[in-house]
């Protein structure tokens, strides 16, 4: 089940686009505001409670397991989130 991303062979750009699309839908965000430098709290009106839902959205979208990863707490911007998700991809390739 952890091979999901690697098997699909998505490019980094495709992964970022997929993450953005899922977040836009699940948090009713304006896609025009979803730039990498956008801060969750200040620019996208998402708070620490939303962070939990975000983890679940990403787990479901990518078929991966993030769980209670302390690294989530350090994510401030959409770009941080993209880097985090891409780091999960390389970890999975390493394991696979």
């Amino acid at each position, binding site marked *: 089940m952890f091979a999901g991303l690697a098997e699909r062979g998505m490019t980094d750009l495709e992964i970022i686009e997929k993450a953005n699309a899922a977040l836009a*839908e*699940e*948090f*009713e965000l304006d896609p025009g505001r979803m730039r990498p430098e956008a801060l969750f709290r200040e620019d996208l009106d998402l708070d*620490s*409670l*939303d962070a*939990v*839902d*975000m*983890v*679940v*959205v990403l787990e*479901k979208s990518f078929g991966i*397991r993030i*769980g*209670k*990863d*302390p690294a*989530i*707490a350090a994510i401030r911007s959409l770009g941080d989130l993209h880097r985090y998700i891409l780091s999960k991809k390389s970890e999975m390739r390493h394991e696979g």
Partner: protein
Amino acid sequence: MGAESIAVIGAGMSGVAAALVLARRGRRVVLVEKKERIGATLRGFTRGGVYFDTGLHYVGGLHGEGPLTRYFRLLGLDRLPLEMFNEDCFDLLRFPGLGLEVPLPVGREATVRVLSSIFPGDAAFIRKYFTRISEIFNSSPLLSFRTDASELLTDMQNTVSLADYLAGGTADPVLRTVLSIHSLLYGVSPEETPLHQHARIAASYLEGVGSVRGGGRALVAELEKALSLSGVKILCGKAAEKLRVSPGRGINAVLLEDGTEIPVEGALFTGHPHLLPPLLPQGSVKPAFRKRLLSLEDTCSAYALFCKCAPTPSFLRGGNLFICPDADTASAFRPDCDPRRGPFYLSGGRDGQADLRGLVIVAPGSARECAPYGASAPGRRPAAYARLKEERLRDIRQKCLAHCPELSGMSVLDGATPLTFRDYLDAPGCGLYGTKHSLHQFNPLPLTGIANLWMAGQSVIAPGILGAIVSAIAACVFILGREAVQEELAACA
């Protein structure tokens, strides 16, 4: 306009606890319950003149300054009659295949001593384990009566499973089973349970182990008295059907199924998390929040036998028996679990004067096995379901008799399946303790996406009587403010 009014939805342990605290702080509280009376799970039931507990079997923390003693005091239950379990053995673990019996005594030092004598090669780890779970328990905010809101919301340190922690400390599978047997009291596999979560529950059973004299119905009777003095308005027999939400004010009314509309200035939902999203109008919370609540998985389910047992075997007087034919506790929590493999939990059977209480035998059960009959209602199940139930209950009875000949005089008065629990507990996934507090899912917090909508109950923070009360107190921290709750906690010290 008087004090702000709050609807508490669900009159189980958590809802009643919250209603009592809110009312004492001057809030006008309306307690809404879909069942006919409050405390449906705690209340138990009677068959053939024998009373059976369903929500309360035994608890810890009932000693002088124990957390449950203090919380009962906080709820005005000072006169609750208690019965303490045997100091030298409140839980007996029987491993029939090994010819081994392990008694768990009350008290951390006594427990370490007894287990070290049975597992001498692991004495150092046994001490380390009990020290660790006690540390976690004592540093948990609401178990040590601290109310720092930020502490209540941080749960990120929970990254080690109980199973991994135990595997790192001992190679003995029997000792690992002994140390994780209380996972049956919260219904999540040791493989999925964060060590921290296990500690908050298991360490509560290190001191002050016992129950309420007269069982769960005696506790409900005291809660009813406390409610009648509190000014809380109780509406039973009517389900909340919708919460009305306005953009600026959040929740402003609760609509009941009979069309009654109750204007409120906030609501605390204490039911199963799957039951909240249908109450919320579209667009009132983000889709991600709604989906997360609906995707939460339940704790384990069970089959249960309700038996009359005369005379009561000595080990069930002031204690429980766990029969573990198989040392692998984790198998009991898998979706393909076999109820015949156990472990079996046996409780009750006390036959004191005016307190004829039946023996309850609980065996692991999977919701999946009963799923084909899920559309049927109690009393109108298909014949195939009746056969499955009969077969399962017969097998469980036979296994228990084989492993526990002391029960030869028992007669089975009734039985339950995962579907029975689904309908009786109002738990859509058949779970005995709400949704799983697991490494792999995020349970609700007291706060929701709506500023004046809060959550409590077994799925928030922790399950069981103590967990349900703690979750109610946590919600009150956000509703009333930290100082108010701190005052209440200080007053019951």
